[in-house]
């Protein structure tokens, strides 16, 4: 039996799993969607399932003729996912509660359709992990030093350029304005979104594993660079056009512009890597 025949034959069985999954996750997934809309570090969450769907669509030609050979190992994965959900649920640990959904989907794919199908489905399934906000305990530990680093670098650069500025932690002070006070407790802006898009971009455009890894890893320096540019740009505005212009720029326009610049850098890197590949 091929994958498309199995989907057709068991369509009602597959449909029935939906209400059961909703019963299991109705108090978990909606919360995550709320976080996508309220936490700017995770606004890309809305895009992730769509990109996953696109990855699936891309693989459909290959998938539909793949032979279905159920694997009992899938049952182990399903049980593990359920345990993960229940333990995390007991401890109100959102990351594992949400991650268990991806584990369950992987387990079901293996248990029903087997290893061959899972191998092809692995990217669309595992890409979903990026829609899950990572625990703040880990996010803070990683993104915070980066954020302080961005502040230090930007402030040193501004000083070199003759702008009057000093900083305390990630609070940056100009003679006429103070920046970054409000989000003292949040990390490096847009780094998670950039990471998710870098992964999507890497898998869409690059063949070799090394190039994929280079693109994904580049998300961090690009986030650092663009965030530093944002601070430096704001510093200049604050110096020459006053606090109001700087704050407007910093809070409204810059967030978007920085992300656009980051995307251009990412695209540029992708182009460069493809070019290197061709020359060989």
């Amino acid at each position, binding site marked *: *039996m091929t994958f498309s025949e*199995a989907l057709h034959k*068991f369509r009602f*069985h*597959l449909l*029935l*799993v939906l209400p*059961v*999954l909703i*019963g*299991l996750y109705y*108090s978990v997934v909606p919360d995550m969607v709320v976080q996508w809309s309220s936490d700017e570090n995770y606004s890309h969450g809305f895009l992730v399932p769509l990109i996953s769907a696109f990855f699936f669509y891309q693989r459909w030609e290959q998938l539909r003729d793949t032979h*279905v050979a*159920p694997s009992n190992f899938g*049952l182990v994965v*399903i*049980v593990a996912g*359920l345990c993960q*959900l*229940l*333990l*995390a*649920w*007991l*401890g*109100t*640990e959102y990351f594992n509660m949400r991650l268990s959904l991806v584990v*369950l989907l992987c387990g*079901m794919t293996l*248990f*029903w*359709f087997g290893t061959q199908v899972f191998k092809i489905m692995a990217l669309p399934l595992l890409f979903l992990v990026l829609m899950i906000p990572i625990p703040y*305990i880990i996010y*803070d*530990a990683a993104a*915070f030093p980066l*954020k*302080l680093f961005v502040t230090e670098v930007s402030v040193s650069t501004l000083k070199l350029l003759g702008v009057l500025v000093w*900083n*305390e*932690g*990630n*609070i940056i002070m100009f003679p006429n304005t103070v920046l970054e*006070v*409000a989000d*003292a*407790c*949040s990390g490096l802006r847009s780094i998670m979104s950039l990471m998710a898009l870098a992964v999507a971009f890497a898998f869409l455009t690059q063949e070799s594993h090394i190039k994929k890894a280079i693109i994904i890893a580049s998300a961090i320096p690009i986030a650092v660079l663009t965030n530093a540019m944002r601070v430096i740009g704001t510093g200049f505005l604050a110096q020459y056009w006053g606090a109001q212009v700087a704050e407007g720029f910093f809070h409204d326009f810059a967030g978007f512009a920085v992300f656009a610049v980051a995307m251009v850098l990412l695209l540029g890197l992708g182009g460069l890597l493809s070019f290197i590949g061709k020359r060989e």
Partner: protein
Amino acid sequence: MLTTKRFVIVYILLLLGILYMHAHAETVIPLNKPFAQFPTEHQGWRMINEYEFSTRVLSILKPTDIMNRTYARDDGRHIDLHVGFYDGGKETGGIHSPKHCLPGSGWFLRSSEHVAMEIGSDTVHMVQAVYQHGEASELFLYWFQVRDRSLNNEYALRLAEITGALLHGRRDTAFIRISSRFDGDSKQAIKRSQDFATDFYPVIREFLPS
């Protein structure tokens, strides 16, 4: 072979999961007494100030009850006390460790160590840290209280929340921070903060569910 049996097995497993989640509905543990009743005078300490967090900060922390007070003894120097209680319900947030939030708001970490204080019959595990903000130095003693356990590590806190829920059906946690500004030598500030902790620990425990 893919058969109906494989689907039925999965349905049954998932339904068992749903049943388990419903059987272990969340338990919310209230404070023994609201912080509003926290004594303003105790063992020679007198409250000289009380302030509230902004709505913005509260909307991030989402505590069940929270208290920010400044106490002073006759010898002058002040102690700041912050206690946040989270009852473990869905609407409440969680503890934000000063380890991340203080450096973010301009505090520079000078030193940090794990210490244990004997208070009465209890051993209280705390973090003793010195942060600097501009010219000012401040000594912090803080810990996380989970039932009758005091923890001074963020990961241990997480683990205690999970085991608490698993074994006791409880997820309530509290964060206690005692801080004191000082110039020059930190010895006086340490002594003062430890005195305060010794005097107030039993009172704090009276308010928190144990």
